[in-house]
């Protein structure tokens, strides 16, 4: 994979995450290379995808942001249930994935995106991995794209 491909995929990821957080949850996600959210307690959701590209995408969010994310997505004043909070994160990674995949290939290809699930602790090795950190309100988000085939 060339540096140009790496840079253009990073641009697609940044734009997709920013727009998805803004339009769906009214939250501001700002990409930052110097962010180092190593000490953060994360909640994660993952989708597997297939089509011209095959792999998986994981969205990790500071657990402290999860109630706000769900409440904003659902438009509720009351605190959403824990189940709804997890589902909201799943919907978010599904939406982001639906923007990123056609953005990388720029074709009119059809992708199958499976239902979101909590990823296993140890992630499988992939051929190409992209990881990007974002500052989101008072916490962080991390998008991890693992592509096994297609790049």
């Amino acid at each position, binding site marked *: 994979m060339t540096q140009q491909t790496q840079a253009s995929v990073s641009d697609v990821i940044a734009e997709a995450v920013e727009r998805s957080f803004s*339009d*769906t949850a009214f939250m501001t996600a700002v990409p930052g290379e110097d962010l180092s959210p190593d000490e953060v307690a994360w909640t994660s959701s993952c989708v597997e995808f297939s089509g011209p590209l095959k792999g998986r995408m994981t969205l990790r969010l500071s657990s402290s942001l999860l109630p706000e994310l769900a409440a904003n*997505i659902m*438009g509720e004043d009351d605190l959403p249930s824990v189940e709804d909070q997890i*589902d909201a994160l799943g919907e978010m990674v599904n939406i982001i994935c639906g923007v990123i995949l056609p953005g990388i290939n720029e074709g009119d290809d*059809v992708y199958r995106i499976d239902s979101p699930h909590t990823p296993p602790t140890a992630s499988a090795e992939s051929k190409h991995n992209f990881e990007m950190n974002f500052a989101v309100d008072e916490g962080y988000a991390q998008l991890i794209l693992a592509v096994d085939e297609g790049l």
Partner: protein
Amino acid sequence: MALQVLVVDDSGVMRSMVTKAVKMCGLDIAEIHKAKNGLEALELMRHEAIDLLLIDINMPLMNGEEVVTEMRKIVELADTAVVVISSEGSAARVHRLQDLDASFIKKPFNPSQLREILDSLIDDRDKVETVHDTADSSLSF
């Protein structure tokens, strides 16, 4: 006229999200009904006069496209305004939906983008209704 709206999605979070977006659009809404699959939606539409249907594509039992195809065969539902919501927006899918006289919006979207689509959809329906009204009144003379 205040609109009767139906939101169909198998995800409770997405039903709430679409409901929130519809409320934020500023349209005159009478009531927002919800259904969690296509079969439930068709059953509800047999008893409630729905003006606007917002429906997800990927659902168990009956997907969004199948629901719209079925609706167009039912005289009472054939003219209902439909917006299909999906995170997958290939040209082939959009063309199929246009053939079914349905609009399409790709996730993510904000309330103003949804409003734009609803305005054009409702304008088109009003024009059709006006033509029908004129035809009806000319018949009554």
